[in-house]
């Protein structure tokens, strides 16, 4: 076979939108013979239940990354939302304990809290001109601390059944959590690829100066992105809280690097202007698949950690290679 053709095929594969998906499938096929349990219904359900909340957070992060920013506060938003929601609707000590609207009010309160924190991040980045990294780092520390302080580090139990249903139940055959994550992903995809706001988000991430001169309301677009990221983290918080049946201030604290890692593996660039919701779906599936299968292989936590680090590096290298191929 002609090596030239062969190489072009590789190049085409790497620059394809779906290459992370192919990579996931390849991984699955390679690992499956060693751990047949990987494909069991139970395990797939397990993968999904880990993946869906992570996916929702990662989609919000994707929007922020496309504007050229970063949001480190998502994990704190998850904790804070969880605590706020639980303290509204817990039948033990909640504000609306026993009220039939408690679940709805709780969810609304959670989302509002997330959007509010995101909005504050946006203000810090646009109006106060703070670097996104450190602005959201500070808000991660503050709101994480706030969640712990509000509850004095005690989890809140006794959430209403209707709320728990949201995370654990199913509508006909479709699990609610899958529906929530799916709707979020589709919504984000349409927003980014089809709407005016989406076009503006890419423009701002590609070049804020040009965008401003061309009449794009740069500050508002960026603020929206952070608010959306906060909102997504709050939705994820609903899923996590309902799954655990507990409002906990430390919920989701360990997923921050997974979120950023998954988004970057998907192909969204930290430099801004590049990325999309679909890539993030693939990136999240990939990282969850790796996580799960390494666990199933009986590999210890340290190997999993190291492999994750290696994957992020690999993704960064592939991203550089992709830009080179596309440029050349």
């Amino acid at each position, binding site marked *: 076979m002609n090596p030239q053709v062969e190489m072009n095929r590789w190049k085409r594969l790497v620059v394809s939108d779906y290459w992370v998906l192919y990579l996931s499938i390849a991984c699955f096929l390679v690992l499956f013979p060693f751990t047949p349990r990987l494909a069991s219904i139970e395990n797939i359900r397990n993968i999904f239940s880990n993946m869906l909340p992570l996916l929702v957070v990662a989609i919000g992060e994707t929007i922020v990354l496309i504007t050229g920013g970063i949001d480190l506060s998502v994990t704190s938003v998850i904790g804070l939302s969880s605590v706020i929601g639980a303290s509204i609707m817990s039948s033990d000590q909640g504000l609306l304990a026993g009220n039939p609207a408690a679940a709805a009010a709780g969810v609304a309160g959670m989302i509002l809290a997330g959007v509010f924190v995101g909005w504050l991040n946006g203000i810090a980045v646009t109006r106060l001109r703070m670097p996104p990294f450190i602005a959201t780092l500070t808000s991660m520390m503050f709101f994480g601390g706030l969640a712990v302080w509000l509850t004095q580090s005690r989890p809140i139990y006794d959430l209403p059944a209707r709320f728990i249903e949201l995370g654990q139940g199913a509508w006909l055959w479709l699990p609610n959590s899958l529906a929530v994550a799916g709707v979020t992903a589709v919504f984000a995809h349409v927003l980014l690829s089809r709407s005016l706001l989406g*076009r503006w988000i890419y423009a701002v991430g*590609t*070049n804020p100066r*040009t965008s401003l*001169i061309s009449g794009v*309301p740069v500050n508002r677009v960026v603020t929206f992105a952070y608010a959306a990221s906060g909102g997504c983290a709050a939705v994820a918080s609903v899923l996590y809280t309902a799954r655990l049946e507990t409002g906990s201030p430390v919920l989701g604290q360990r997923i921050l690097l997974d979120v950023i890692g998954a988004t970057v593996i998907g192909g969204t660039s930290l430099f801004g*202007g590049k990325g999309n919701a679909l890539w993030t779906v693939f990136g999240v599936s990939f990282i969850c698949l790796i996580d799960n299968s390494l666990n199933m292989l009986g590999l210890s936590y340290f190997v999993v950690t190291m492999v994750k680090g290696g994957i992020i590096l690999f993704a960064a290298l592939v991203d550089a290679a992709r830009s080179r191929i596309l440029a050349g």
Partner: protein
Amino acid sequence: MNEDMLLEYEDIEKSFFGVRVLSKVSFALRKGHILGLVGENGAGKSTLVNILGGVISSDAGHIRFQGREYTAASPADAFRQGIGFIHQELNLFTNLDVAENIFIAGFPVRRIACIPWIDARAMRARAEELLGSVGLAIPCDTLVERLSQGERQLVEIAKALRLSARLIILDEPTTSLTARESERLFALMKELQGRGISMIFISHNLGDVFRLCDDIVVLRDGLVVDAGPVERFSENRVISLMVGRSLDHYYPPRATVPDEEVLLEVSGLSHPGIVEDISLTLRRGEVLGVSGLMGAGRSELARILFGLDPYTRGEISVKGLRMPSGPSRAAIRSGMAFLTENRREEGLLMEASVADNIALVCLPSFTRTPSGLVDSASLKREVSGAASKLRIRSSSLDRQKVRTLSGGNQQKVVLAKWLLSGPSVFILDEPTRGIDVGAKHEIYKIINDLAGRGAGVLLISSEIEELMGMCDRILVMSAGEITACVERPEYDRERILRFALGRKPV
């Protein structure tokens, strides 16, 4: 081999992405001479000196420097071999002091316990000496961020003199200097020449070139079109060599004449330190030129008009309506379009596709309410319509990145982007900078077309001939003020230049 020659270029060639930028360039520079390198933007001047300065390497040909075959792997390498390079943007570190800037790449050190410590005393002493030799009387522990542009320029020269440079390249050194600072620089250049140092001087100001230089090399489209001692040239001859054709046919004629209706009216516009008491009117169908030297405040005026920078006094109105101050969206809504001088950083999304760039300004009008979704089909139609009308040459509007287009096509993309928002006032800041002659011609035709269809065009340019060829009237700016308004019958290069030099305090 001629003993007097310091530097000889022999058949130097260079291409970027398959486009030939320099072809078979040969010339020589005598010891102790100042050589003026002139040519239009994009003629290859920077490429030529960048090869010498080790910034890029040549594809073919030889350079002899001080009688030996010369190549430079890096700027530092060139510097070590005795070539100092003063770039248009200064390469100083504002957070360090003057002495540290001079010695940043080679501090005098004393080893104590095997660790190289900066020998501060030696460094200060040598820095004082170098500052003295460029006539800069400031303490050498002054932070560079406290210095004026002119002082920084002198620090750069002191830096170039650190290792006894035989040749100093000055690439447009006067662009951000005041007249007084320029004079000081020229005096220093003469003095350095007296010490036997050769210089290559790149400048758009032909007056300066004729005053300072012993030899002139004229470049056009990567070719040396003429070279020789300054006595052989006149300014007019240099200009026609640079342009390569007689100016009469260069600018396409416009069929229409300006209307009476005023589109843009500015009165008493001022901002301290930037512009002072600017008043102007732009009529329907008019092309109004704005001339001035670099740093006269033309681009700053444009930015203020478009709402990007603040102003403290005065009024701007478009079609009789006072324009609210604020972000550019207000200006766009009132019917203004702004092509900035900085195409790469402010005009285009370089990493985005041609179509995305063209669509950027008009997006809101192609958005359905209340869904907020973009009507991609009709947007695409409009975009490709605009692209073909301006004859943008692109392999695929949707896939080709703007970065990969030629300069002229890039500029047409910026114009197309604004055209789609249907503006009545165009502010064009250096629309033909850095693009080739053919594309320039097309841009001129587009400008005429705009005016013909009833728009008003404010054309800002450094090339006086361009303004004389294109405009109905020319405003001349100097030091942030309008010093004259020249009508077409009175067009005269020298006259305009005199106004441009105008009220600069010397």
